[in-house]
């Protein structure tokens, strides 16, 4: 099981979703993806769409300012 970090705080729609999805597709089942993202649209929808696609959202935590960390298990 490996943990991969992905920072999409500088990205905008649709690349927030696109980069998360591409990174998730490269992982093996059971691997963890730690995503750093901004509040608003990315925070509302990146974890939601991951869950809808059958991935497990393990945790969402506030990092600093508008930055949040979402932990997704494939």
């Amino acid at each position, binding site marked *: 099981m490996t943990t991969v970090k992905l920072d999409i705080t*500088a*990205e*905008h*729609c*649709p*690349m927030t*979703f*696109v980069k*998360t*999805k*591409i990174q998730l597709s490269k992982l093996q089942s059971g691997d963890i993806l730690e995503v750093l993202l901004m509040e608003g649209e990315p925070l509302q*929808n990146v974890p939601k*769409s991951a869950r*809808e*696609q059958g991935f497990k959202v393990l945790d969402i935590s506030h990092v600093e300012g508008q930055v949040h960390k979402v932990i997704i298990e494939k």
Partner: protein
Amino acid sequence: MEISDILTSLPVKEPKKLSIISFSGDFDKLVATFTLATGAAAIGYEVHIFFTFWGLDAIKQKQGRAFVGKGFLPKIFGFFMGGLRSAPVSRLNFLGLSPKIFRYLMRKKNVATLEELVEAAKVLEVNMYACEMAMHILGLQKSDFIHEVKDVLGVATFLEISEGGRTLFI
């Protein structure tokens, strides 16, 4: 009631599906097409883009101006239509200066450029099709397009593919 009856009476959740008819070869409208397509594919939608008329310019292998097409008139026309890199914006094109400004601004503001969106669509396996009728008029062949173009279709097949989802005309 038998268990099998209950199971068959449960509503079947249709897979989320987005189909886009990409008619315009304008830079800004292609950005809209590929933003919607990649965003939808990334959040789990099945995505289909049907390129027709000017939209076909977006999927040509030769992205600049080139004499693509069979026959004299299609070749000339193909040259003026150009490809993805020569797509004009729908308003205030300023003889092709505006697309350059847009590309510069998009890079500067860290927004995906049209070329990046097209590459993302390929990686996300967005289904791309070319319109058989428009290809016939413009003297284009499937080999003139990027190899990600899955098939050459007509109306009936597109309607079949898009059934049960949302369809947009851009």
